[in-house]
């Protein structure tokens, strides 16, 4: 019998809370994390809202200017090679280790690995490249490279925590941390690792957010209460957000031996690509449909057994429609009717970290016994006909849930999580 995996620790730095209790409260009470923002000091920009990270000040390219909650101890040696989202990530990892009752020293055992996802820091890349041009290449910050490029999370976290197992980064845009989590599950099933840290993180600044405005993918609705409205007829784009989430996945027997607290079991995953467009979802969600079916098959469950789906739905007109059609095909067409919500109505879209963040939300839902709602949904799109989209959070304890993610290039990843014990 192949090893199984359970989730034993979570850490959150998100727009809806900077610890598990705050995030759980926000999910249950539909307390959103979106705020008005002004990017690049330009009030004329049409993008007016973002999912902001509170308690942190990381607007400067210099770590000397950064401020973060006093409960975290970040030495100069850590700070000097971090991007803004790296600071969030270290804080999330610290929380997750404490949550899983692990010490930092315990994860340098070689049996623990680390998979990460972030887009790097375009903000810091711009800063360092501008500096390089200013001196015509004569000098540069020695930490500029490892602090800013994609991979900065795994470089830094592996070094800080002396991780000697599998370490790597995933780059599949908004599906990245879902790939990371799926591959972490495979490593545990194959017996290669006993424990995996999966971390997703993103900066929240103009350099990360505004390139999506060029794609016309961002909402221009200035109202934080309604700008992110997945599946709604009036949706007009997504609201960008960031932060960091760390999820600790452990081989179930190893977790049991050490008496680890367990949120849920990760019982399967699947992935499939649209093979369609570099930046737009397949119009009928073909890849996502295949990914959901593969995840169900991997977990050995039928569509009718899934009680809740945390949808990827980001609030873009095309993407939400594709996902709705894929959900109808996988569930409605076979008579299944799980509750479905997109928590991005509360958080905004956290890009590459969204997959692991929403898997963590599913873990909370399974352990705490609730189903998150669709915070800002007023009138569902006609493409959602037949889908059960609760507005408020429900005090219903799901037994099996699915988590969807999609990214550029048509990458689609789905996870299946089960209540533990069943």
């Amino acid at each position, binding site marked *: 019998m192949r090893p199984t995996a359970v989730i034993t620790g979570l850490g959150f730095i998100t727009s809806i809370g900077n610890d598990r209790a705050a995030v759980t409260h926000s999910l249950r009470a539909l307390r959103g994390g979106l705020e008005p923002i002004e990017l690049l000091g330009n009030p004329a920009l049409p993008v007016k809202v973002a999912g902001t990270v509170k308690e942190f000040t990381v607007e400067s390219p210099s770590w*000397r*200017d950064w401020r973060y909650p006093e409960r975290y101890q970040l*030495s*100069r*040696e850590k700070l*000097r*090679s971090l991007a803004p989202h790296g600071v969030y990530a270290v804080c999330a990892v610290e929380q997750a280790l404490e949550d899983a009752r692990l010490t930092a020293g315990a994860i340098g055992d070689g049996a623990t690995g680390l998979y990460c996802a972030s887009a790097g820091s375009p903000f810091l890349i711009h800063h360092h490249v501008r500096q390089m041009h200013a001196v015509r290449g*004569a*000098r*540069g*910050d*020695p*930490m500029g490279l490892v602090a800013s490029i994609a991979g900065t999370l795994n470089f830094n976290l592996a070094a800080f925590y002396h991780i000697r197992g599998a370490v790597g980064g995933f780059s599949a845009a908004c599906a990245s941390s879902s790939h990371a989590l799926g591959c972490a599950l495979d490593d545990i099933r194959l017996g290669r690792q006993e424990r995996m840290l999966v971390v997703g993180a993103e900066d929240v600044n103009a350099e990360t957010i505004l390139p999506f405005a060029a794609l016309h993918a961002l909402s221009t609705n200035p109202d934080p209460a309604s700008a992110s409205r997945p599946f709604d007829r009036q949706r007009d784009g997504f609201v960008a957000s960031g932060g960091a989430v760390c999820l600790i996945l452990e081989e179930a027997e190893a977790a049991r031996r050490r008496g680890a607290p367990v949120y849920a079991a990760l019982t399967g995953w699947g992935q499939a690509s649209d093979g369609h467009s570099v930046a737009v979802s397949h119009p009928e969600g073909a890849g996502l449909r295949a990914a959901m079916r593969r995840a169900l098959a991997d977990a050995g469950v039928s569509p009718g057994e899934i009680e809740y789906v945390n949808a990827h739905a980001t609030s873009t007109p095309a993407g939400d429609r594709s996902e709705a059609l894929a959900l109808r095909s996988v569930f409605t067409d076979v008579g299944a009717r799980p509750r479905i919500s997109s928590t991005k109505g509360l958080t905004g879209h956290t890009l590459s970290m969204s997959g692991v963040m929403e898997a963590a939300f599913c873990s909370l839902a399974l352990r705490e016994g609730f189903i998150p709602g669709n915070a800002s949904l007023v009138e569902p799109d006609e493409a959602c006909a037949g889908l059960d989209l609760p507005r408020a959070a429900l005090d219903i304890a799901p037994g099996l849930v699915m988590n969807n993610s999609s990214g550029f290039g048509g990458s689609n990843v789905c996870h299946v999580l089960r209540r533990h014990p069943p």
Partner: protein
Amino acid sequence: MESSSSPIGAKATLLRHFPGEIREAYARSCAAGDSAAVDTVVVGVLLDHVPDKAKLAAIAPDDSVALVADLGLDSIAIAQVVFFLEDLFEINISNTEILGVRTIGDMRVFIRRKLADLSIVPRA
């Protein structure tokens, strides 16, 4: 008043987190090419990059203090010191040059010579 939008402010801004005496020494080094003031800035920058600040309480930062063995600077911290001083004084320091710098005194003398060789009075 410093202005981060001017070249003058941009250089002084690099020292904005440093004690007042270091910032004043930098201003003197710029205005009058004051070598003693340059020394104060160089030592201040070195001490700022010491990872374990508790070490400083037990060390008098004289010329004999070794950057690695006594101050605990690793190769990355030394590279950061070099970058910081290059930016501050608008000089270029090669890898070969820095390999010979092992103590506070070495660094102090090295930067003095570098500025003198290039007839540089740093532009604040």
